[in-house]
């Protein structure tokens, strides 16, 4: 497997005048000669659109548009429709705005009102026909896209007992995943044919779930695994039965596969699973970490285990709020932080070589095992 050997900072983007909360890559860019582009949103109440300029001698990133004078408070998150034509932005001002990209100009074509207070996250379904939003009022709202840029609320999902931090549509199934200040992840399915949405599973502390706020979640490319990150300083990997999921319309439950702890030492705000199976996490310890599945199976552990591939300490001067892999072939990552900046990174590839030191450590561990085995078998000492 081709793995990464280093992380290179390509550019630091300045422009926002307050913390940058979130960013979203336009999914139709980075392919077929269309330059990569993403949106960022901030406590400065604006959204910025950034684009790669491959023709410039320095191959730089430029701010192409500033979307302002619509939201009156913090813009907490943003999401592109699958076609890349619309951008949805969720704000503390209790609204979600829909922006249409008309030849590089962005026009606010609709404002979704309904949440009682802060809207914290927004997500489009894979076909772009539905939108989900969530917020401090503990609810998840589902909106249907109607002709003429109309959005009708078709369901309000109640079940979380606190603030809902993030909502995310499953990449292929008609399922919504939400994570909350109540420490749980809830999975919602349309049980009937008529927008009869219900909570079909709650992943809480009793199912090996998180013990504090769950801030974000992300799916692998196949949609049969999910990673969540939390204020409890852990990342958790969850899985479902892919074969069963393909063969039935019924909901197939998710289960805990493993917990990654002992890495970040402050709240983990963001996690994103790349198409080639590298998990990136960004946290309040200013560090970005990368994890991959351990392929040296030793037969001792059930299910997959994960190892840290790389870490970048002091990636930003302050808390990292969002890490997102770009679409397209290259391993480009963008990160957004409390310091008001966005950074573009390239994960440089190469075969992962075991460093002599870690090899030595491994050998020592093996020796220790044998040594204690001898102690136990000869002297009965444990």
């Amino acid at each position, binding site marked *: 497997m081709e793995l990464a050997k280093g992380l290179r900072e390509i550019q630091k983007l300045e422009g926002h005048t307050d*913390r940058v909360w979130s960013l979203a890559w336009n999914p139709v860019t980075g392919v077929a000669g269309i330059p990569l582009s993403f949106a960022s949103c901030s*406590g400065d109440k604006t959204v910025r659109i950034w684009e790669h300029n491959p023709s410039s001698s320095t191959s730089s990133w430029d701010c192409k548009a500033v979307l302002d004078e619509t939201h009156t*408070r*913090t813009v*907490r998150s943003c999401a592109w429709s699958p076609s890349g034509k619309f951008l949805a932005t969720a704000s*503390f001002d209790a609204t979600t705005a829909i922006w249409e990209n008309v030849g590089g100009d962005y026009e606010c074509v609709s404002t979704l009102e309904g949440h009682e*207070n*802060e809207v*914290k996250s927004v997500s489009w379904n894979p076909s772009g026909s539905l939108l989900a939003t969530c917020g*401090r009022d503990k609810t998840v709202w589902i909106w249907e896209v109607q002709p003429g840029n109309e959005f009708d609320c078709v369901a309000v999902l109640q079940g979380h007992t606190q*603030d809902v*931090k993030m909502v995310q549509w499953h990449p292929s199934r008609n399922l919504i995943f939400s994570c909350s*200040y109540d420490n749980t992840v809830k999975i919602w399915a349309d049980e009937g044919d008529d927008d009869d949405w219900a909570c079909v599973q709650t992943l809480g502390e009793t199912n090996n779930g998180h013990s*504090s*706020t769950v801030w974000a979640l992300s799916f692998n490319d196949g949609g049969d695994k999910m990673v969540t990150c939390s*204020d409890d300083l852990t990342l958790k990997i969850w899985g479902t039965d892919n074969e069963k999921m393909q063969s039935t319309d019924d909901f197939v439950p998710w289960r805990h596969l493993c917990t990654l702890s002992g890495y970040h030492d*402050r709240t983990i705000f963001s996690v994103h699973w790349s198409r080639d199976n590298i998990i990136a996490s960004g946290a*309040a310890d200013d560090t970005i970490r990368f994890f991959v599945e351990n392929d040296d199976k030793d037969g001792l552990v059930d299910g997959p285990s994960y190892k840290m591939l790389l870490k970048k300490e002091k990636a930003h*001067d*302050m*808390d990292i709020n969002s890490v997102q892999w770009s679409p397209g072939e290259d391993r480009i990552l963008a990160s957004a932080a*409390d*310091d008001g900046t966005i950074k573009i990174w390239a994960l440089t590839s190469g075969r992962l070589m075991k460093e002599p030191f870690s090899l030595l450590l491994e050998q020592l561990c093996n020796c220790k095992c044998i040594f204690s085995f001898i102690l136990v078998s000869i002297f009965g000492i444990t």
Partner: protein
Amino acid sequence: MVSELINANPVIYEKKERRVRSVPTAAADEYAVERIDQQEIFDHIRDIKDPEHPYSLEELKVITEDAIEVDDGRGYIRVTFTPTVEHCSMATVIGLCLRVKLLRSLPSRYKVDIRVAPGSHATEAAVNKQLNDKERVAAALENTNLLDMVDECISPSYE
């Protein structure tokens, strides 16, 4: 504000003597990274006014110098405060005042945790969780009424 005081008769303590911080003059290099200690943090927050009494948090012993922990190397600071009564509904406001005052006083590299002293508040876990959720804090500080209240408490008293 509240018509009836939550703690009508708080105990008032004497203020601690103000020490002059001993800055080694020989190493007065203006570019050197200045280390931050307990006393400096205490000096930043001792004069914050209680939201419902004309006394400072120091006079009410809501905060003491000993309740401040500093890990200057990692830039981690933890302030533990003790509300005057167990059911103090002002605890989150006091916590917000501490957070905002330190946010405005310290270099941005510092990471601040605020908590109520263990056993000092009826809903300790809930108060602590809220005060350390920066998204909730950010949203709270966009509320003009709340921000006015915080500003009033942390404004200098010119005594």
